């Protein structure tokens, strides 16, 4: 159980680090697109690791104490992970597309290569 707790702590540490990096990236970067780049990917990765830590902890309790109600927790957490991963990727795509079509320019941009493809 001690080794299991150590693995869980390591996974939580990775997850919290990436969530913190994503939040700080919102303030460190200059425009909307780079902020989207930092925030979406880092928070998705960090949340994956936090949920993996929860899965490991629940599976460990299930294996050590024989408490089979932990399987409910694991299934629900996996469903939450699927919802999070699918919606984050498509949502980020939608946000970037909407911002580009509304005329938001990247910081210090000179040429916009996508401008002629606006109405495809």
């Amino acid at each position, binding site marked *: 159980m001690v080794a299991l*707790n150590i693995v*869980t702590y390591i996974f*939580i540490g990775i*997850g*919290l680090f990436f*969530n*913190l990096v*994503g*939040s*700080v990236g*919102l*303030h460190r970067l200059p*425009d*909307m697109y780079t*902020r*989207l780049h930092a*925030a*979406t990917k880092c*928070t*998705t990765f*960090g*949340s994956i690791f*936090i*949920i993996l830590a*929860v899965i490991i*902890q*629940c599976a460990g*309790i299930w294996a050590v104490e024989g408490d089979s*109600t*932990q399987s*409910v*927790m694991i299934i*629900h*957490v996996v*469903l*939450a992970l699927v*919802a*999070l991963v699918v*919606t*984050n990727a*498509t*949502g*980020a795509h*939608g*946000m970037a*597309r*909407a*911002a580009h*079509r*509304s005329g*938001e320019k990247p910081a210090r941009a000179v040429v916009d290569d996508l401008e002629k493809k606006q109405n495809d």
Partner: protein
Amino acid sequence: MNWMPAIIVMMVCIGISVVRVFMGPGAPTRLVAFDTLNTLVVASLVIVAMMTGNRPFYIDVAIVYALLSYVMTLYVAKYIQGDKF
């Protein structure tokens, strides 16, 4: 297993994102910050479920929150884009 430091760090992350929601120049930046906030809240709800003694109904709340916040993001994105709907 002590989950309290994890939830404190997540609260700090959420606070940083909220600052950007109120500061951010323009609607797209605020939308990005709000989407980050939603992801962090879902992760926090998973941690809260573990912290209060493995209760699965917090995870149900997290699933519904993730799906509804996705719908909100797409609606606001379509509004920023200037589409009619």
